[in-house]
């Protein structure tokens, strides 16, 4: 596969892992220096906001704590389209921009509704020809998120 294909596949696999709540599988796709954030611009107060921010260890703790919490068990389906890939061979990194739509499907009856839209800004380490997620910023347009959700997008 070409580097572009490897990058696309990494991003799509990360969404499949999260959709299936395979958190170990998701973390396996991440570089040890991985950082994750969910951000948004809040026009009502004209400010940037970071709603969730963790390093790789923090993400693991978040996942490990999930069974201890009371959560909405509706499933999420992440629809991602990789728009752009910019490779920096000197840094052995790539920066990507992907469109994101997240749908929520209820357990009772299977009704599906749009949960959130936004973009994913990834930085990918290309060391050794096996790309890993180094930094992910899920940048949401949607700010009205109903009762919220415990699992990152």
């Amino acid at each position: 596969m070409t580097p572009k294909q490897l990058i696309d596949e990494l991003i799509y696999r990360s969404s499949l892992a999260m959709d299936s709540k395979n958190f170990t599988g998701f973390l396996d796709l991440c570089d040890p220096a991985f950082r994750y954030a969910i951000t948004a611009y809040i026009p009502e107060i004209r400010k940037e906001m970071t709603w969730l921010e963790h390093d790789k260890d923090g993400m693991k703790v978040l996942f490990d704590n999930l069974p201890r919490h009371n959560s909405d068990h509706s499933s999420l389906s992440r629809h991602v389209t990789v728009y752009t890939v910019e490779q920096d061979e000197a840094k052995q990194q790539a920066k990507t921009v992907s469109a994101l739509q997240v749908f929520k499907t209820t357990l009772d009856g299977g009704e599906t509704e749009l949960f959130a839209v936004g973009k994913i800004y990834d930085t990918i380490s290309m060391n050794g020809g096996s790309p890993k997620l180094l930094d992910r910023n899920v940048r949401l347009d949607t700010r009205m998120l109903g009762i919220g959700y415990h699992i990152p997008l």
Partner: protein
Amino acid sequence: MSRNEIAWKEQPKFPSTHFVDTRIYTDNQIFREEQEKIFNKCWIIGCHESELPNAFDYRTFHHPGGAQLFMIRGEDMKVRAFYNICPHRGNTLLYDPVGNAKRITCIFHAWSFSPKGDCTDIPRGKEGYQERYGCKDASLREVKSEVGYGGFVWVNVDDDSCTLKEYIGDALGMMEENLSMPLEVFTYHKAIVNTNYKLWHDTNSEFYHDYMHYFNRITGMMQPGYFDRKYKGYPNGHASVGSMAIKYDAYAGSQERAVGWPGLAPGGWVLIDLFPGMTFNLRTSVLRMDTAIPLGPDKLIIEFRGLGLKSDTPEQRAERVRDHNTIWGPFGRNLHEDLLGVHGQGLAMRERSDSKWVLHGREENSTIHDEVGMRHFYAEWGKRMGRQASDPFSDNKLA
């Protein structure tokens, strides 16, 4: 032993102050009365002064009584509140939730207004209205507004209401020092939930539901001092809850909060519920402010604001943001659980679901799991509505 229909509908064996009939959460007639008798009579938080830092800044607000409002800072730096309605053809004047307008011009026919509510221009007014109608007849409807208690912008659509000071009384006294310095809103989001506004305020008025929160159980309920926290009721239906030291590092992945709050002990947490649906929730490093805005008996918007000190350094602010969102953001550990809880109540109490009673019967000397906070709220609710919450359709209406 399970109950049959008769037993299910039997009144709980408590005084009538210790339970409510669930129709107060579902009935449309009661909701309309609440808008009229409660929301249109009480002082409500519309926004915070930090959302209007400059002259001519405005902020729109869906008032829980139903009116669409905007608050605007004038050239004189005074904040005023108006109906967001053009007096000409009833159009919305300001569409964006926030902005800056020296002159407010309706997009429909270009009628213009000053930030003091005066009509300043009616295009081709003389030609159309001659001397019969002019700018002097077309001012905006102003509603009472005051800035106070931590810099919040309060509005009251009742021209004959008491003052804000009379309305609040001593209820915010516990936070007087905490609210004495300039504050700033650093985060804001809304949630729409299919539930009744009182159920959200109930959640903010009782801590027994800490059993739902793993975070609160491990950092609070299992720590010394938790069961010493006490409720105190104030006139007009307000109530407060005293502090304890939260042990944040008891939760894996969490740590003791490095940034505190002036006048609050390290790890402290005080909470004040204001009738009919506002909560000041000061938790160690962050002030969270909830405003409940009912859209119907079973539909609610909640506005969530997180505030820090205006004097924060970028590092302090970043910590407050993180502290807030770890538990109270849309992806936080606690807020999702609280919203899931009231969502579930909304599902179970839908009209004709045959839900019947909600209990407020715990008595523990006004300490943290006592349900006196809710009882205090419903005493005020009953007084204003002229109905008993436990028997809202009785002929024995309260005077």
